[in-house]
C-alpha cells in the first residue's frame, strides 16, 4: 500500500518533470527539471531495493554530470530559446527516434527471461524482496567482475578513449600565452631572490 503510493507519486514526478524538461523555454529551468526527474527515478530504484544503482544515479548524474551541464548552460547565457525554432521541421524525425527508442527498450525489457514479467503477476514489494543480509553493491560487483568482466572492461576502455579524445580535440596550446609555473613558485628559495650585501660601516667625518 505505502509502496504503491510512493511508486505512483514518484513516477508521476518523473514523467511530469521529464515533460517539463523538454517543454520549458528557459534552458536552466529545463536542466533543473531533468535533475528532478533523475531524483524521482532514483527513488523508484530504491523501491526495487537496488540501492547501489539509486545512489550512484544521484551521485554521478545529479552530483556531477548535471552540475557540468548547468555550468555550460549558465555560461552560454542562451536565456530563452526563440519560439518554435524549427519545431515543426524536426517533429517527424523526433517522433521517429522516440518510436525506435521505445520499441528497442520494449524489445529488451518485454522478454520473459529479463525478469520483467514478474511485475505483472506480483505486487512490487514481493517481486524485489531479498534475503536478510543481501547487499546490492556486493552482488553487482560480483557480477560485473566475473560474468560480465570483458564487457565491463571494454566499456571502461571506451570511456577512457572518449575522455582522451575529447581533451585532445578541444585542447589547443596558444603560443603567446604566458603561464605561471606553480612548481617553480613553490620551490623558490629566498637565496635566489634576495642578495644580502654587507657594506662596511663608515666612520662619520
Amino acid at each position, binding site marked *: 500500500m505505502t509502496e504503491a503510493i510512493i511508486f505512483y507519486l514518484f513516477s508521476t514526478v518523473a514523467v511530469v518533470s521529464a515533460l517539463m524538461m523538454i517543454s520549458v523555454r528557459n534552458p536552466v529551468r529545463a536542466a533543473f527539471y531533468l535533475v528532478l526527474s533523475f531524483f524521482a527515478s532514483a527513488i523508484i530504484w530504491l523501491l526495487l531495493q537496488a540501492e547501489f544503482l539509486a545512489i*550512484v544515479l544521484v551521485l554521478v548524474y545529479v*552530483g*556531477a554530470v548535471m552540475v*557540468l551541464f548547468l555550468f555550460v548552460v549558465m555560461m552560454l547565457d542562451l536565456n530563452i530559446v526563440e519560439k518554435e525554432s524549427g519545431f515543426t521541421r524536426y517533429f517527424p524525425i523526433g517522433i521517429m527516434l522516440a518510436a525506435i527508442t521505445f520499441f528497442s527498450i520494449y524489445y529488451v525489457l518485454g522478454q520473459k527471461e529479463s525478469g520483467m514479467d514478474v511485475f505483472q503477476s506480483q505486487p512490487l514489494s514481493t517481486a524485489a524482496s531479498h534475503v536478510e543480509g543481501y*547487499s546490492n553493491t556486493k552482488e553487482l560487483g560480483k557480477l560485473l567482475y566475473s560474468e560480465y568482466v570483458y564487457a565491463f572492461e571494454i566499456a571502461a576502455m571506451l570511456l577512457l578513449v572518449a575522455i582522451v579524445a575529447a581533451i585532445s580535440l578541444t585542447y589547443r596550446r596558444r603560443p603567446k600565452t604566458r603561464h605561471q609555473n606553480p612548481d617553480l613558485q613553490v620551490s623558490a628559495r629566498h637565496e635566489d631572490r634576495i642578495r644580502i650585501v654587507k657594506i662596511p660601516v663608515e666612520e662619520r667625518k
Partner: protein
Amino acid sequence: MLDLLYSLTSFLPESLQTIIIILVKIAVLLIPLLLGVAYLTYAERKIIGYMQVRIGPNRVGPRGWLQPIADAVKLMFKEIVIPNFANKFLFLLAPVLSIGTALAAWAVVPFNAELVLADVNAGLLYILAMTSVGVYGVIIAGWASNSKYAMLSALRASAQIVSYEIAMGFALVGVLMASRSLNLGDIVIGQSGGIYHWYLLPLFPLFVVYFISGVAETNRAPFDVAEGESEIVAGFHVEYSGMAFSIFFLAEYANMILISMLASLMFLGGWLSPFEGIEIIQNSSLAFIGTASIGWLLAKAAFLLLLFLWFRATFPRYRYDQIMRLGWKVFIPITIVWIFVIGLMYYWQIGPWFTH
C-alpha cells in the same frame, strides 16, 4: 526510552507509529547537532580570537556564552530581502537544499555500535551522494539571485566542490578496500584492537587527502574563494539576508562537523578507544579510558574541528588556479597511487589491517 515511546504511541496504527518514532529519532539527532553548530561558531570566534591575541566575544551572558543565541535571535528577526527579477521560488529553495542535504547525510552516521538512525548497507555511498547534491544549493543560489557577483562565485565554488569530490571519492575507495564494507558501523568495527589497528596508519595519505578535500568541500579557509571578499564581495550568498543567509551558514558548519565525524569514523577508529587491549589500563581504576564509548568519537571529531579553525587562523587564502591544481594534479594522483599500494598490501597481507 524507545520502549516508553512505543508504549505511548501504541494506540496509533502501525505505519503512523513508525513515522512518529522516526521523527522523534530525527529530532533527538538534530537538536544536539544544531546546538553544536551554534556553539561551533562561538568556539571559532573564541579560538581564533585567542590565536590572534584577542578575547573574542565576551559581552552576551557570562564569558559570552549566550553569544550564539543572540546571533540566532538577531538573524531570525531580520527581513529577508528578495532581489528584483530574482526567481523567487529557486531563490528560497537554494538555502533549503543546502541545509537539507547537510542534515540528511547525518542519517547514516553511527555514534556507537547500536546508535544509528538508518543502518544502511551503502552508507558511505549515500554520504557521498548527499554531499554531492549539496552543491546545488550553491549553484541555485548563485543563479537565482540575479546578480553577477553571486553568479561568478557560484561557478567558482561549484567547480571547486565538484573537483575535490573526486579526490574525496578516491580516498573513500581506499577506506572501503581496507574495510571491505560500505557500512560505516562495519568500517569502525574493522578497526578494533587499539590505535595500531586504525586505518590512519596504512591509509595515512588518504586521510590527509580526505581531510584537506573536506576543508575545500565546505568552502572553508584557506580554500574559501567562494566568498573572497576582496573580489566578489561575499560569494554566492551575497543577496541573502536574515534567516536565509544564516541557513547557508548553518549548512556550512553542519558539513564541517560531518566531515570531522566521518574522518574520525573512517580513519581514527570512531568510538573505539586508542588504549584498547592494554592490560595495565584494563586492570586499573582507569579502565573506562580503555573502553569504547561515544565520548571518544566526539573527542576525535572535536580535535578535527579544532584543526578547521586552526587552518583558518593560520593559512593565507589559496589562489584559485592553485586550488584547482592541488585538487586535480596533486590529490587525485596521490589517491590513485595509494589505492594501488593498498592492493599490494592486500596481496601480501601486511599488518593487522589486511589479514582477513
